[in-house]
Structure formats: C-alpha cells, structure tokens
C-alpha cells in the first residue's frame, strides 16, 4: 500500500469517500509517502550544508572567543543581538495565528496554524542560540537562572536581561506545548492509517493513545482555549520584554516608551511575512492547495499591510519625539540614523518595511503567489535591517565622541547568521516531511460546522 501511495502525483487531488477522508488523506499522505518531492531533497541538502557551517562556526567561536565577530567596543552587541531579536520576532506570527485568531474565531487560521506554530518553535530555537553563544563564557549561561550555588549569588532580577531569560524560555515552553497538543489528534490519524509497525509505534507513542473520545475532546477543547488565552498576553509580553532590553537603557534612540508596541507590531509583521514565504512553496510542493488556499495567503498579506503601516508610523513617531523632546542627544541619534554612517541600512529598512507592503493595497498583488513570496522576503530583509539599525546606529555614536566607532561584520558574522537559517530550514523541512503540516482535525471541525450551518 505504501507503494501505491508513492506512485501518486503530488498534484493529484486527495482521495477519500467523503470530505473528512479527503482532508485526512491530503494531510497524512505527505507523511506516508516514502519519497518526498525532489525540491524537498534539494532544499534539505542546502539546509544541512548551512547547518554544518553553523556548527563549525560555533565550535571555532568557543575555541577562539567573541573576537572572531565584528563586535567592538562601542558596538558590543553587534549581530548576535540583531539576529536574536530578528528570530524571536519571526516566531511571534505563529502564536498570533494559533492563539489570537483562535480567540477571535477566525476559522481560516486552521489552514495555516500548524505550520506557523512549527515556525515559531524553530525560530525561537534559532533566537535562543544567539545570546547563548554571545555570552563570552559559553559554559556559564546557567548563571542567568536562579540556581542555588556555593557562591550564594543570584541573578539581578531588576535587569531586563533577566526578564528576557524568563520571557523567552516561557514562550518556548508554552509554544511547544500548544503545538504538541494540537498535533496529538493528527498524530493519532497517522497512527491509525500506518502500514508499517515502526510508524504505528512511533506515531502511536507520541499521540499518547489519543482515540477521540468525546469526554477527552471536552477537556482537550477547554485546555486548548486556556492555552490560547494564556498565549495571547504572553506573545505581547515577550516582544515587549525584548524591547525592554533596549528601552530601559539610557541610550538615545533606545530609551523610548514607544518600543514595546513598536516591537510587537514589527514582530507580527516579520512573522507573517515569514509564514507566507514558507507556506507558498510548501502548499505548491506537497499538494496542499485544497487546504491552504489563495484566500488564506491574501488574508495574511492584509495583516502584513496593516502591521507594515503601523511600523512605518512608529518610524515617523520616533523622529517626531526626537524633535519634540528637545533632547539634543535624542535628536542627534535620529539625524545620525537617517544621514549618518548607517544611512544605507536605514534607507534599506525604510524601502523594505514601509514602501514594499504598501503594494498590498492592490488585490492583484495580494493574490499573486510569486509576488507574495518576493515581498515576504523583502519584509524580512527590512525587519532584519530594522534591528541592525536600532542596535548599531545607537551604539556606534557614544556620548563621548572619542569613543565613536563603526561596526564592520566579519565573515564569521555572515556564516553564523546564514547558518542559523540552515538550522531553521533543517528543522522546518523535517517537520514538513514527518509531521502533519495542517491541523486536519480542526479543518474537519470547521467543515462540519459550515456543513451544519448550510442545512
């Protein structure tokens, strides 16, 4: 039977006696096929190469120290923190789609929430890696946790960096549980259709013996609701706390109250762009077009337009406040941002983040899959530059002109950052291959509700 599944073309419509079975088939046949599409192998090969490069870079970093990067004295944070904020931000769309849209009863989320949640988890793993390897003594990061020790020393809980540890680790744990809980019924579907003993055991083990009892569904749905309700303020708090790393300092360009909402809007913006960038090829290659429809991509593009406009407003408001505050340091920081040594980065950011999403006012562009991916990539480039501009342009001009400097990345900065994409895509491609990419049980529930309403 495995062979008969294998011979089917990816673009062939899913099989089944009824809609429910067609949904199951569309989702689980990806897991059941012995050979994924060729594009998967190519992408996986490239990802593995970059993952190996990342591991080599980290090994060399641990051997040589932080000096292999371009971090220097005024710009001590450099790319590792830029990459950290970038990846954490990417993750936020997953939680937003799975939790916030769930609470608002946006049924279209069922098509994309699973992949978006997976993206969240993998992005947070990439994010956590960067401060972890940036601490200089990479064998001591456990000092950041309140572990009783012979030195009788505790973390300084009034520091936003300590808040960050708690925020990001809570976020990762909760996202992982939320994702796993959603997977349980679909893993059970794979188990029940399994033809090999190993697959039956493994999927059976991870589905924890889920059989779809109504009494179980009752508690499951309540638990899912609670987790959604907990994740919603959590996702807002996480990027707010990340922004506190900057905002509670006294550096011009960082010390502003607009940072928490501005960071959260930016996170949602970049995260949705990443979901679009990942899902458009995935639905193409894995024959999921019946479930992930053009209208879903269009809705996400609308969110990108809205959050992109918010981010543009925040950029403008930063300049306004810099002038309105009358603080000459604040004013200098922003003039320096737009016309100083990092002007090239600033205007890259503006064109990618403020101008490119405005194209989504046109329905033709919103519903064009190729353009959606291109603009998605542009937005992510822009959002990376946003974090670069915030981090480097504020740090490179110290209060003392004698301490001014310029940040120049080294090849290791590039390789480590590219390598984190290798890590991300390796995990994402394994997810696409071995786990149900769409929440089949939720899609069925939505279908049943619509069917019922039609009667």
């Amino acid at each position: 039977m495995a062979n008969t599944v294998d011979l089917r073309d990816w673009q062939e419509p899913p099989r089944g006696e009824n809609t429910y079975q067609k949904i199951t088939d569309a989702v689980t046949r990806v897991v059941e096929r012995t050979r994924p599409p060729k594009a998967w192998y190519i992408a996986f090969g490239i990802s593995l190469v970059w993952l190996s490069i990342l591991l080599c870079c980290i090994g060399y970093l641990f051997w040589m120290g932080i000096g292999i990067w371009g971090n220097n004295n005024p710009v001590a944070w450099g790319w590792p923190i830029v990459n950290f904020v970038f990846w954490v931000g990417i993750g936020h769309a997953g939680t937003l789609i799975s939790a916030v849209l769930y609470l608002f009863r946006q049924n279209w989320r069922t098509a994309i929430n699973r992949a978006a949640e997976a993206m969240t988890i993998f992005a947070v793993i990439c994010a956590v890696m960067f401060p972890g390897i940036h601490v200089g003594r990479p064998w001591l990061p456990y000092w950041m946790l309140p572990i009783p020790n012979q030195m009788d020393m505790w973390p300084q809980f009034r520091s936003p960096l300590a808040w960050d540890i708690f925020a990001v680790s809570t976020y990762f744990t909760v996202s992982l549980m939320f994702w796993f809980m959603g997977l349980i019924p679909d893993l059970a579907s794979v188990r029940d259709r399994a033809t090999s003993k190993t697959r039956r055991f493994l999927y059976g083990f991870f589905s924890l013996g889920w059989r779809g009892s109504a009494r179980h569904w009752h508690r499951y749905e309540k638990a899912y609701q609670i987790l959604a309700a907990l994740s919603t303020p959590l996702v807002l708090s996480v990027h707010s706390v990340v922004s506190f790393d900057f905002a509670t300092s006294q550096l011009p360009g960082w010390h502003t109250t607009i940072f928490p909402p501005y960071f959260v809007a930016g996170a949602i913006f970049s995260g949705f762009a990443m979901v679009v960038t990942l899902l458009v090829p995935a639905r193409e290659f894995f024959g999921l077009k019946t479930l992930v429809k053009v209208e879903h991509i269009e809705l996400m593009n609308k969110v990108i337009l809205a959050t992109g406009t918010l981010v543009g407003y925040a950029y403008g408001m930063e300049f306004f406040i810099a002038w309105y505050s009358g603080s000459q340091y604040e004013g200098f920081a922003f003039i320096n941002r737009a016309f100083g040594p990092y002007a090239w980065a600033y205007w890259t950011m503006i064109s990618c983040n403020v101008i490119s999403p405005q194209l989504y006012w046109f329905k033709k562009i919103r519903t064009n899959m190729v353009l959606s991916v291109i603009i998605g990539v542009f937005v992510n480039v822009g959002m990376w530059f946003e974090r670069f501009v915030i981090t480097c342009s504020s740090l490179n001009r110290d209060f003392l002109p004698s301490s001014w400097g310029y940040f120049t990345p080294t090849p290791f900065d590039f390789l480590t950052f590219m390598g984190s994409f290798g890590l991300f895509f390796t995990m994402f491609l394994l997810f696409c291959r071995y786990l149900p990419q769409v929440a089949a049980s939720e899609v069925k529930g939505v279908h049943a509700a619509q069917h019922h309403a039609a009667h």
Partner: protein
Amino acid sequence: MSQEKESQTSGTPVPGVYALLAEYHDPDSLIAAAKKVRDKGYQRWDCYSPFPVHGIDPAMGIKRTRLPWITLCLGLTGTTTAFTVQWWTNAVDYKWTVSGKPLWSFAANVPIGFELSVLFAAITTFLSMLLLNGLPRLSSPLDHVKRFLRASDDKFFIVIESADPKFDEKATRTLLDETHADAVEAVPTDDHLSSDRIPSGIIYTILIAIAVSLIPFGLFASARNSLTTNPPYNIVSNMDYQAKYKAQRKNDFFKSSDSRAMRMPVEGTVAVGDLRDDAHFYEGKDASGAFARTFPSAFTVDDAAIARGQERFGIYCTPCHGQTGDGDGMVHRHAFALQEGTWVKPTNIADPKIADKSVGELFNTISNGIRNMPGYARQVPPADRWAIILYVRALQKSQAEFVASATEPTK
C-alpha cells in the same frame, strides 16, 4: 480511565466481550444516538469522533470540566513563586544596591511575575488535560477493531462497555441498532492479543541510548574522592588565558623598571585639552605673576558675553550674593532666619573695596574661593568665570552710577 467518577459502579463484564461498538457516518446521527443511550441510563460508555462534535456534551450529559480552576490555582502559585523568589534572593539573601534603587520594588518584578504565572498555568493546563483524560494510554481493546481505526479519520462511534451495570449483550445491541447505526460490532477483550509489542529495533535503540548516556555518570562516579596531581584540563584555553595584559599583572618586558603591566605616563604628559598654558586666561595672572588688570585676549568682551555672565551669575552666585549682588541671597536669608552663629553675611559685590580689586583677583576668588565661599573652578569653566566677572563689573558700575546720581545735588 477518564470516567473517574463512574468507574466505581461496574457490573459483571461479559467474558470475552469488552464492549459493543456502533458506527455512524455523520455528527448529527451520533448526537441523536448519544441522546438515546444517555436516556437509557448507561454510565460506562463513550462517543468517539475525529474532531470535537459540537452539541455532544449535553447529548451525552458530560459535566463541565474543573480544568480551568486547576489552571487558576497553579497560575497564582506561579505568581507567588516569582515574587517570593525575586524578593528573597535580591532583597534578603544577597542584598545588592544598584544605582541607589530600593532593594525591593513591585514594578521591576512584574515581568517575571507575569511570565512565571503563564508558565505554571500553561504546564498545569496541559498536564491536567492528560491526567484527567487518563492519557497516555497506549493500548486499548478498541485498537484491534479495524473499523474503529477510522475514528481518527471520518467515522463516528458509540462504545458501550460490558462492565456497565445496565449492559446486556442483546438489549444493548438492539438499542444501538435502533439508533440507525451503520454497523454494530462486539469488541473482544485484548487479554489474548499481543500484536501491540514495541518493534524490536526501537527497543534496542532505547536500550543502547540509555547505556551510552550512563557512561559520563560512570566516569564521574569513578573520579569521585580520587586524588590527582595533574593540572585541570583547559578545554577552551584561548578563553581562559587571553593574550592581553591586565592592570595589576606582571609584564617581564619592563623588568628593568618595575615589571608592571600598567605603565605611568611619560613625564610631562598632558591630556588633550588640559595644557592650560595661558596663565592670564586660566589663572588670572599676567606675565609677572601678579593679578591681571585686564580681561584675557582669549576672552571676547561683548554683549553676548555679558548676557552669558548674567545667566551664569543667576545660577551660581545669586543663592548667596542675591540678584543685585548685595549679599542678600536666599542662603543668607535662611541662615539669618535660623540665627546661625558662625554665619557671615556674603560680601556686597558693589562695595567699593571689591570694585577696586583687579579682574585677575576676582577670577582667583571665584576659582579658589575665599573665607566661607568655596571655589567654583570645578563647576564653572574659565570662559564662564570671565563672563561672570564681566557681569559683576557691570553690576558694580551701574550701582556706583546710581549712588552717584542719587547723591548729586538737585538742580
């Protein structure tokens, strides 16, 4: 079992039969059937569906779960834990003042308080869902019914266990037939079945993984209480011993002098901006060392300089000398009101004795202080001191003019 409350009342199970199972093809017929089974008073029964069927809870008589209350309690435990840990570690056990801020403040501890509440609540929600549902339960007699495998795909089932006190194989089957089930089937007990064994490859993998993971612990255990004369391993020696000198370290390159890594500056070294070779401008003295009688050439005398002097005078001088410089400033009035015994009234700067002093001497007084008055060299840069003197001269002149004109005989 999940049906924790119902499980106390169980009848005699029919040997060899675990349950009767009825299959339906859509949610509506499942709900209709569930209502009939409920009304017959069955207790050990359940419905199975590939997705949560809305309306099944009242149809089966499922009570609301207490899960939210468990979440609330453990979430609040998280809040309490967070605040207790932060307060005890930072304000009690290891007091550490940062920028003179209080050791304990509510606001700074809110973020972690929030995060831990969410963390505790979320873990509780997930684990309680599993525990209340009796999961994980990897094997069940239902797994051996081929038909039932579609419960996770597209079919809907009612299962009535033979352990139910009302269970009667014939009567129950008739009831299920009457609910328009697509099929009704007996589920055998799984005592005699052994098809759910874990595949041997997986067992071996797990065993090998456990064995390998024990090796480091074995090494630790064998090294315990043992003595060694070897130096410790420096796995990352580059980070432990960095090729740089720190302030208090030894540096053999300077063996000829003091072998210290930190060096004194070469004699006569002057920091940028600290040269101060213009004695007139910086000390108020002329070439012969006497107090200068003119303003220095590095200081431009103009209206802007007087305005600057007036502003600086207002900041630094008026508290004691008063707005007009007559010595009746706020500090003086306050000291006078308190009847401070040692207090001497600040000098009236319009006094001819002061007006006769050279600008160089005034500069010296402002810079280094006199009697009760402290020196202002650290707070007021030289150019500003000259500006203040310029303004003081203006005050003296205007007040002398006023006195002269007032005492002039009237025409």
